[in-house]
């Protein structure tokens, strides 16, 4: 029996009269690579905001690793294993690349201010350990050489990768990637797909949930796909099943699903 890392039941988000997400339920199993697709305005980003704790749902329940979390603060979601990237990159621009990743380590590093002030040796060891892990992470993402540059000075593709590295720093159980390859050219996109796959393979318990517009990428990466339309789940299945689904085809109104 595989573990359920995230369970959502009848999650809704209404903005005034607009039903951005209108009763979404799912169970995400540990260690899966899962895609979320849907036409523009389907509510994909809103759903990510709800499931990652950025936005509180109007109603419905969310469980992270068996614990109810709906209505909690983002840092409480983070402490229970959720991490994410953003559709519009949201790095700490005036912090260095290393500092961005270290901020990602914030909670896992577990070094209280008091212990730091007291200068306990475990604090010293702890910060050396965190530095080492941050360095290893940057190495894996090919950003180590640039670690002391400000995030704002990175190229667009590097910023996207840094955001994923920062999210990974918290050692999440569940990683939300909101259009990680957006704005990249085909080659960069391909590289990023390889990186995500490698990351997922190396962390066997990590569940990756990603929104992606490029059908080619989603079909190649995902083991299962959720299809959202007008705030509702209209289909859930393997990439092959999604490709063959009339419902999905209709939702996209003749959009080209054949990669």
């Amino acid at each position, binding site marked *: 029996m595989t573990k359920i890392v995230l369970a959502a039941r009848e999650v809704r988000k209404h903005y005034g009269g607009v039903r951005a997400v209108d009763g979404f339920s799912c169970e995400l199993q540990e260690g899966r690579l899962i895609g979320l697709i849907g036409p523009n305005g389907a509510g994909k980003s809103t759903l990510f905001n709800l499931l*990652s*704790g*950025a936005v509180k749902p109007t109603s419905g329940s969310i469980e992270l690793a068996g614990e109810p979390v709906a209505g909690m*603060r*983002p*840092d409480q*979601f*983070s*402490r229970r294993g*959720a*991490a*994410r990237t*953003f559709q*519009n*990159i*949201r790095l*700490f*621009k*005036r*912090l260095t690349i290393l*500092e961005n990743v*270290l*901020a*990602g380590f*914030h*909670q*896992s*590093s577990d*070094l209280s*201010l008091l212990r*730091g002030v007291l200068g306990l040796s475990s604090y010293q060891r702890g*910060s050396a350990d*965190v530095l080492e892990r941050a360095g290893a992470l940057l190495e894996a993402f090919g950003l180590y050489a640039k670690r002391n540059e400000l995030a*704002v000075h990175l190229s667009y593709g590097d910023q996207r990768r840094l955001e994923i590295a*920062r999210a990974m*720093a*918290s050692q999440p159980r569940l990683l939300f990637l909101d259009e990680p390859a957006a704005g990249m050219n085909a080659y960069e996109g391909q590289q990023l797909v390889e990186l995500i796959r490698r990351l997922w393979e190396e962390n066997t318990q990590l569940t990756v949930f990603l929104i992606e517009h490029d059908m080619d990428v989603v079909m190649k990466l995902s083991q299962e796909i959720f299809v959202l339309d007008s705030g509702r789940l209209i289909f859930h299945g393997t990439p092959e099943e999604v490709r063959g689904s009339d419902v999905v085809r209709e939702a996209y109104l003749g959009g080209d699903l054949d990669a």
Partner: protein
Amino acid sequence: MLILEQWINGLALGGVYALIALGFTLIFGVLKLFHMAHGDVFMFTGYIVVSIVVFAFGGLPFFVVLLIAMAVASLLGMAVERVAFRPYRQSDEIIPLISGIGMSLILQNLALLIWGPGQINYSFNVGIGNVSFGGIQITGIRLVILAASIVIVLIFNYWLYRTRTGRAVRATAADPQTASMMGIRPELIILLTFGVGSALAGAATALVGALYGAIYPALGFSMGLKAFAASILGGLGNMTGAVVGGLLLGVLEVFTASYINVAYQDAIAMGIMILVLLIRPNGLLGKAVEDKL
């Protein structure tokens, strides 16, 4: 040789302004809020410290007085945060500004009520006499102020740029929502920011107290104004800028007072500030504000 003395006097005064301005600019950086009661936290701390330290336990070493002042200001600053700003976190930004002005008036009137309208005179013994070398004479107090300001600024700098908590403060200043998704608790960071920012003002309280030995309810207003001016002069939200702005303001005031007329010191210092801002609207070290993606 007189000019060297003036430089040291100006830098000592500027060091105090820099400490207040640092707290002011730190709080601005994190909350994007002009803390209108920052100067009054400085003033009220002064009254409390004078009451405790001078009249209850006279003769404490100055170092201890400094630490007590920092602790008192820190607690007071955090209380102000909880009462005047936290309830209005989701409100339009003008609301906490008004609430801050209200808090400023409350603290001033409380001081009037408790300690009366008159000026209270006192003295802290810094334990160092006057120093003279090569024909110049510097009061021990000014050397202590200069040294203490430098040490405190360096410790603050280390905290903000080299520790995990300081990094969390900067991350929160940059983007509170994203920071909270890293497991950082913005509300705790904001409280801490007020604690640290006000502690800097508390240090300034002790140092100014040692220098002038006088306190009155309106002192906070003029100090707050100078911290505000120094922060703007250096570039709002910029830590180095606050220090540079504070030092510059102190030096300008001392030179105006000794070479022109003490009555004009505020007018000339502020006038020069306005001229600088005409040329560099974002302050000496400020960068043009970037738009968010």
